[in-house]
């Protein structure tokens, strides 16, 4: 690679390539419903070579995971009108006959245990048990016993994706870690 005119300590080219390999859309920043619309629209454009069913799955998963970042990310910023927006990363890529959707955000270490536990439970259940788990959690939520409704979203994601929730946790400081979830969706989904 020949750099014609390089003035940077940070290579946007390398960054772009790292992101661009197999990646269709990548976003890092604040997230709210309008930004979700922007990213969602772009995802729709780049996934137009898959079936309607696959796109519908991607959409459902995107909505749940993006909303989780918006609401529960420990990293946030405030708009001029005083609205708090969670910040994180949303990436959709393609590998062979599948799409991979990944979200990442900072979490406080003190908050992370229950989420990891939930993911492990979700990954350990077969489909029927997962559906039962969702029914159970929904009941608990309606009875006011389930504080964090992001969890039902995770169950929904696992059911829609038909793949386990691929979790990664990376410490970034003494108090916080970066938490990412990845799921796969087959492009040729017809069911």
């Amino acid at each position, binding site marked *: 690679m020949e750099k014609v005119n390089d003035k940077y300590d940070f290579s946007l080219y390398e960054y772009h390539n*790292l992101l661009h390999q197999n990646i269709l859309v990548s976003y890092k920043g604040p997230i709210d419903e309008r930004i979700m619309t922007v990213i969602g629209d772009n995802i729709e*454009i780049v996934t137009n070579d898959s079936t309607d069913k696959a796109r519908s799955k991607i959409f459902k998963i995107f909505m749940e995971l993006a909303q989780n970042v918006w609401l529960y990310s420990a990293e946030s910023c405030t708009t001029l009108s005083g609205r708090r927006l969670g910040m994180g990363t949303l990436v959709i890529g393609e590998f062979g006959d599948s799409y991979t959707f990944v979200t990442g955000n900072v979490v406080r270490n003190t908050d992370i245990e229950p989420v990891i536990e939930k993911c492990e439970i979700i990954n350990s259940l077969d489909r029927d048990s997962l559906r039962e788990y969702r029914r159970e959690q929904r009941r608990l939520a309606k009875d006011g016993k389930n504080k964090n409704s992001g969890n039902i979203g995770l169950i929904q994601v696992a059911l829609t994706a038909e793949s386990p929730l691929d979790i990664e946790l990376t410490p970034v400081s003494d108090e916080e870690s970066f938490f990412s979830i*990845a799921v796969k969706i087959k492009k040729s989904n017809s069911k």
Partner: protein
Amino acid sequence: MESAVKKHRTVDNIAISYTGIFDTEILSVLAKEIEGTLSQDDKVNKKVFKIFIELAQNISFYSLEREVNSEGSDMGVGTMIIRNFDTYFEFSTGNKTTMENIIPVMEKCDNINSMSREKLREYRRLQRNMPAGEKGGGNIGLIQVALTASNPIQYSLVKCEDGSYFYIVSVRIDKDK
């Protein structure tokens, strides 16, 4: 791909990053949404917004890599980053391009950077009165960016393996101006 997600985290100072299709209609919504989140200063926010739109438009028009949206409109693919430093924001965009596309642009940047503000405004008036080029306001876009940012436009070119070029444009917005 998880490493790419982590990269967002580890590269310093990145406040906003977007890689994908630059559909300017859609992205203007993004620009509006993030407007208040970087700074409390109205003036700075306006600059961020204006520059975002201009640079997004440049990628949309000029990127070699393209996609078509559901309405059949074709648009460019690239990367845009906003980095947050103590005294300034730095906007960078990157997209693939060809040598023939880029030489006039680099010349334009050099030209723009060499002008005083007065001269730049005169240049913009001149360009505005010219017949619209194939891609419309692309001529004025960079001039507008330089005027809005009140800083020089920095550019860089990387040759890619497939013979095309990756063109990077950066400009700073000072926080206290």
